[in-house]
C-alpha cells in the first residue's frame, strides 16, 4: 500500500470524514474505559488481586488511556501519529482479547489432549495433500483444458473430503461445542465482542482512505509492516521473558510462597543471603557454637592456621556452599571442555580421511538428552556393578599379575564419596560440552586465511609456531565466545546434578550448586521469594564474570579491526 503519490487529506469523502470522527470518538471512549480499568484494582472491584498485579494493570491501562486520548486529538488534527498510536493500541488489545478467548475457551489446557487426537486425525491431512497434488498435476495438462479442469476438480473434492474427515476425527464438532459452552459467560462474550470491536477499529484505521486522510507516507507503511512482522516475537519476548524477569525481581523483595499473596520484605532476602561473619578460632577444632551466634549463623568452613584458625559462618550456609561448589565446578569444566575442544578442532580441521565422521561423533553428546546421558553415567559410575570400576579392577589385576605391581584396587565411590562426587559431574559436563565447543572452534579455524599459513611455511615456521602465532591469536573471537558461553553454562549447572546424585546435594553437600539450591528453595521448600533473590544474586555473579571476560578480551584482542 503506497500513499505517497496522493494529495494528503484534501479529497476526503463524507464517508471518510465520518470514519475519522468515529475513530476519534472510539479513541476517547477507549481512553475512558482504560482509565476506569486502571482504577478498578483500587476500588475493591477485584478482590484478592495481588498488589503487583494491580499495579501492573493500572500502569498498563493508564498508559493506554493517555496514549488513546493523545491519538484521539491527533486524529482530529489529521496527524499521522494518531493513526500509529491507534493501530498499536487496537492491535495489542486485539491480541489480548484473542488470548483471553483462547484462555476462557479452554484451548491452552485442551492442547494437552490434542496430541492424542492429532495422532488419530493426521492421516487425513495426507488425503488433503494428495488432493492438492492431484489438483496441482493439472499444471502438466495445460494443453488439454478438459483434463486440466477434471484434475483440478477431483483434487478439490479429495481435499474437501480429507479436510472434513480430519475435522470430524479431530473432534472439531465437540471442540466447537465446548468452545461455545466455555465462552457462553460474560467474560467469554466480552472477549469475543472485544475481538470484533478492535478488529473493526484496526480495519477502519488501516484502510487506504483513512491512511490518506491522516497523511500516511510510504515510510510509515513500511515501518508499520516491520513492526507487525516483528510483533509475534516481540510480544513473546515481553510476555515470556522480560515479564517473568521483572516479576522475579519483584518477588525477590517479598516472602512469596507461590500460593498466597506475597508480603513485601524489602531487602531481607538479600540480607539473609549475604549475611556472613568471620571469627578467629582458639583451636582448629573449636566448636562453632563457642564463637558464633548459632541462632543466626551456621558454619560454612574453617581455615586452620597453626594452633588456631578462622571460622567462616553465614546465615544461609547452603548458599555459600553452593557458590563454592559452583565456582569450583566452573573452574574445572571450562578448561576441561575448552582446551581439549581446541586440540580436537585442530585435528578435525585437517584433511585426513574420515574427519567428517568424527566431527559428527564428537558432536553427538551435545545433542543427546541430558536425562539419558546422566542415567547412563549413573550406571557407569556405580561403585559395585559399574563399568568404570570394573575396568579399573581389570587393569589393577592385569598390572599386579603381569608386573607384580602390588597395586590396590581403589574401588572409587564416584558419586557417594564427597571427594569424587563433584568430579563425577565435571567429567560428564566436560565430555558433553567438548563436542559443541569443537564445532565452534572448527568454524573459527575455517575462517583463518590459508595464505597466512602458507606465508609462515615459506618463512620456515614449524607446526607449533603456526599454532601459537597464527591460529591461537586469530581464534581469539571464537575462544572468547566459547569461554564465556561455557562459563555461563557452567554457572547454571543443574540437570546433571539433579539426575545423577541421590540426594542431589551429594555427600555432605558436596554437589549442591546455585541453581539446584534455587530450585529446591523455590519449588520444594515453598520459598519463591527467596529463590528469586538467589536467582538475581546468581545473575550478578555470572554478569560479573562475563564482564571480566569482556574486559580481558578487549585488552588482548590485538588482531581485531
Amino acid at each position, binding site marked *: 500500500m503506497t500513499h505517497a503519490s496522493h494529495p494528503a487529506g484534501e479529497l476526503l469523502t463524507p464517508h471518510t470524514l465520518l470514519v475519522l470522527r468515529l475513530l476519534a470518538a472510539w479513541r476517547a471512549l477507549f481512553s475512558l474505559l482504560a482509565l476506569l480499568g486502571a482504577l478498578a484494582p483500587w476500588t475493591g472491584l477485584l478482590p484478592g488481586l495481588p498488589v503487583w498485579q494491580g499495579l501492573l494493570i493500572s500502569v498498563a491501562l493508564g498508559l493506554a488511556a493517555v496514549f488513546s486520548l493523545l491519538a484521539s486529538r491527533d486524529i482530529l488534527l489529521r496527524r499521522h501519529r494518531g493513526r500509529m498510536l491507534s493501530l498499536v493500541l487496537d492491535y495489542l488489545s486485539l491480541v489480548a482479547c484473542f488470548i483471553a478467548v483462547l484462555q476462557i475457551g479452554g*484451548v491452552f489446557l485442551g492442547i494437552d489432549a*490434542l496430541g492424542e487426537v492429532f495422532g488419530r486425525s493426521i492421516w487425513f491431512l495426507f488425503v488433503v495433500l494428495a488432493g492438492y497434488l492431484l489438483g496441482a498435476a493439472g499444471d502438466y495438462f495445460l494443453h488439454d483444458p478438459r483434463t486440466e479442469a477434471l484434475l483440478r476438480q477431483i483434487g478439490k473434492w479429495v481435499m474437501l473430503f480429507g479436510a472434513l474427515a480430519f475435522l470430524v476425527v479431530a473432534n472439531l464438532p465437540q471442540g466447537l461445542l465446548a468452545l461455545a459452552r466455555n465462552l457462553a459467560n460474560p467474560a467469554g462474550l466480552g472477549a469475543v465482542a472485544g475481538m470484533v470491536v478492535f478488529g473493526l477499529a484496526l480495519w477502519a484505521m488501516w484502510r487506504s482512505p483513512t491512511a490518506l486522510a491522516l497523511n500516511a507516507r510510504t515510510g510509515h507503511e513500511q515501518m508499520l509492516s516491520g513492526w507487525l512482522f516483528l510483533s509475534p516475537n516481540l510480544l513473546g519476548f515481553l510476555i515470556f521473558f522480560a515479564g517473568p524477569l521483572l516479576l522475579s525481581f519483584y518477588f525477590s523483595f517479598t516472602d512469596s510462597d507461590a500460593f498466597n499473596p506475597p508480603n513485601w520484605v524489602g531487602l531481607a532476602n538479600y540480607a539473609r543471603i549475604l549475611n556472613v561473619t568471620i571469627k578467629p578460632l582458639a583451636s582448629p577444632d573449636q*566448636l562453632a557454637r563457642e564463637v558464633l551466634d548459632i541462632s543466626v549463623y551456621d558454619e560454612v568452613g574453617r581455615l586452620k592456621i597453626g594452633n588456631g584458625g578462622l571460622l567462616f559462618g553465614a546465615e544461609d550456609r547452603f548458599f555459600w556452599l553452593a557458590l563454592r561448589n559452583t565456582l569450583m565446578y566452573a573452574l574445572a569444566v571450562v578448561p576441561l571442555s575448552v582446551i581439549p575442544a581446541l586440540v580436537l578442532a585442530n585435528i578435525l580441521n585437517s584433511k585426513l580421511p574420515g574427519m567428517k565422521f568424527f566431527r559428527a561423533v564428537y558432536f553427538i553428546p551435545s545433542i543427546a538428552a541430558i536425562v539419558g546421558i546422566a542415567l547412563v553415567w549413573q550406571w557407569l559410575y556405580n561403585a*559395585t*556393578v559399574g563399568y568404570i570400576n570394573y575396568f579399573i579392577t581389570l587393569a589393577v589385576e592385569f598390572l599386579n599379575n603381569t608386573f607384580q605391581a602390588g597395586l590396590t584396587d581403589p574401588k572409587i565411590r564416584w558419586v*557417594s*564419596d564427597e571427594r569424587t562426587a563433584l568430579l563425577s559431574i565435571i567429567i560428564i559436563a566436560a565430555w558433553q560440552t567438548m563436542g559443541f565447543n569443537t564445532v565452534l572452534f572448527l568454524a573459527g579455524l575455517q575462517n583463518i586465511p590459508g595464505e597466512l599459513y602458507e606465508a609462515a611455511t615459506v618463512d620456515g615456521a614449524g607446526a607449533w609456531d603456526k599454532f601459537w602465532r597464527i591460529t591461537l591469536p586469530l581464534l581469539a573471537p571464537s575462544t572468547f565466545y566459547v569461554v564465556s558461553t561455557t562459563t555461563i553454562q557452567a554457572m547454571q549447572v543443574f540437570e546433571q546434578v539433579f539426575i545423577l546424585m541421590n*540426594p542431589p546435594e551429594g555427600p555432605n553437600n558436596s554437589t549442591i550448586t546455585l541453581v539446584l539450591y534455587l530450585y529446591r528453595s523455590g519449588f520444594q521448600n515453598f520459598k519463591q521469594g527467596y529463590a528469586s533473590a538467589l536467582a538475581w544474586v546468581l545473575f550478578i555473579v555470572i554478569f560479573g564474570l562475563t564482564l571480566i571476560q569482556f574486559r580481558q578480551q578487549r585488552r588482548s584482542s590485538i588482531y581485531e579491526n
Partner: protein
Amino acid sequence: MNRKLWMLANVFVLAALVLAACGGGTPAPAQPQQPAQPEQPQQPAAEEITIRWRTRPDNQEEINVYSTISKELDAQLDGIKLVYEPGGTEGANYQDQLRTEVAAGTAPDVFWIPGTDIADFATRGLILNIADLAARTEGFDVNAFYPGPMYHLTYNPANGQSGANSGALWGLPRDVSTFALYLNLDLIEEAGAPDPRELAKQGKWDWEAFLDVAKKTRALGSDIYGYGASAWWGPYGVWLNAAGGGFFNADRTACALNTPESLKGLEFQRALYQEHDVAVPYGEDPEPPFRAGKVAMFQNGRWATPGIRTVTFNWDVVELPKGPNGHMGNWLFWGAYVINAKTQHPEQAWKLLQALTTAETQGKVAALGANIPSRVGQEAFDAFLTFTPPANNQAFLNGLADNPATEGPLWAGSWPEYDKIMGPAIQAVLTGSKTVEEFGATICDEANKAFNK
C-alpha cells in the same frame, strides 16, 4: 490458485487444531491434562460433575489398576465423571509438578501427597479441611484407619488437638507400608549363615544376628555385600529408632538427633559401612547389585516388591532386626488423598475420597503387591497375606505390629528444611568424613532452626 489454496489449507489446519483442542476440554476448574485412557474422551452428560484425581503410581501396572478403579468408581458414583491422571513417578517429580499446578490453580480436585507434606499443604491453605463434610457423613469413622496417619490427618494447628473431634480432617490415607529386609536366600545359604526368617521366628533376630549374617555373606567375595539401603531418611532412621532415639523429641518440636540413643543407632550403622565394611557404600544405589545377586539383605519398603519379583534367585523377606530397646524401629509410611482447596465440588470430591479408601478399592491396589491397605482390620491383613510372593508377607505385618514410628510432617517446623540439614550430615558420618561425636556436637544447633521456619 495453488499457492492461495495451499495457504488456505495451512490456515485451516491450524484453526482446526486450535478448535479441536477445545474438544478435549472439561469444565472449570478442573481442566484436562493428558487423558489417562487412550480411548476417545467422552463428553460428560450435562448434569454430571467432572472430578479430576491423581495419585503417584510406581509403575505401569499401578497406572492400569488405578485407571480401572477410576472407571469402576465412575460407574458407581452418580452424577460424577471421574478423570484419572497418573501424574508421573517420583523420578518424574510428582511432587514438584503437583506443587506447580497447585500454584497455577490447575491442580486436580483430589490428589495424593506423602505424609510428610500434609502440614505444609494444610497450613498454607492448599487443601480442604473436610472435618465438616466427614461429620455429616453417616458411618464415617476416622478410627477405621491406622491411628498414626490419622493423628496427623486430624491435627488441627489452630487448637493443637488431634482426633475425631479436633475440628480438622485433611484427607484419608491411601495405604501404609513398612520396611523389611529382602533376602537373597541363595547367597545366605552359600555363606552358611543362619536363615534370618528362622531366627526371627525364634525371637533371635537382633542386631548381633543381623551383623553375623552380613559378615558371613560379605566374606563370599569382594563384590558381595551383606546389606544395602538407599540414601534417604527412611533407611537410616530405623537404626536410630531401634536404639531408642529418633529424629525429634516426643512432641516433635525439637531435634533429638544428638541424644545418646540416637547416636548409638547411628554408630551401629556407621560401623556397618566403615568398620565392618559389610554394606553397599552409602549413597550408591543398592538395588542394581541386589538384583544382580550381589547383596544378601536389601532394606526396602513394600513398594519394592513388584520389582523384586522379577529376580531369578531365591528370595523372601524378613522383618528388620530388633535393636537394643527390643523394637525394630520401623517406620509406618503413608500418604493421603486430599482435596484441593480450590475445588468447586467439595461434596463430590469427598465422595470420591471415601470411595478410593474403601476396603474393596484398597484391596485391588494391594493385590499388586506394592501397598498395604490403610484400614485396620483382620480382613485386610488376611487378604494381604495372600498377595505372594514373597512367602513371608507376615514380615511386613510384624513391622506394623511392632509400634512403628509414623512418618509425618512437622507441624511446628519445616520438614524439608529439617531433612535438608539432617540428610547431608548423616551421609557425612556414614561415608566416613565425619565422626559420630562431631555429628552429635553440632547437628541440633543447625537442625533446630527448622522449627522456627
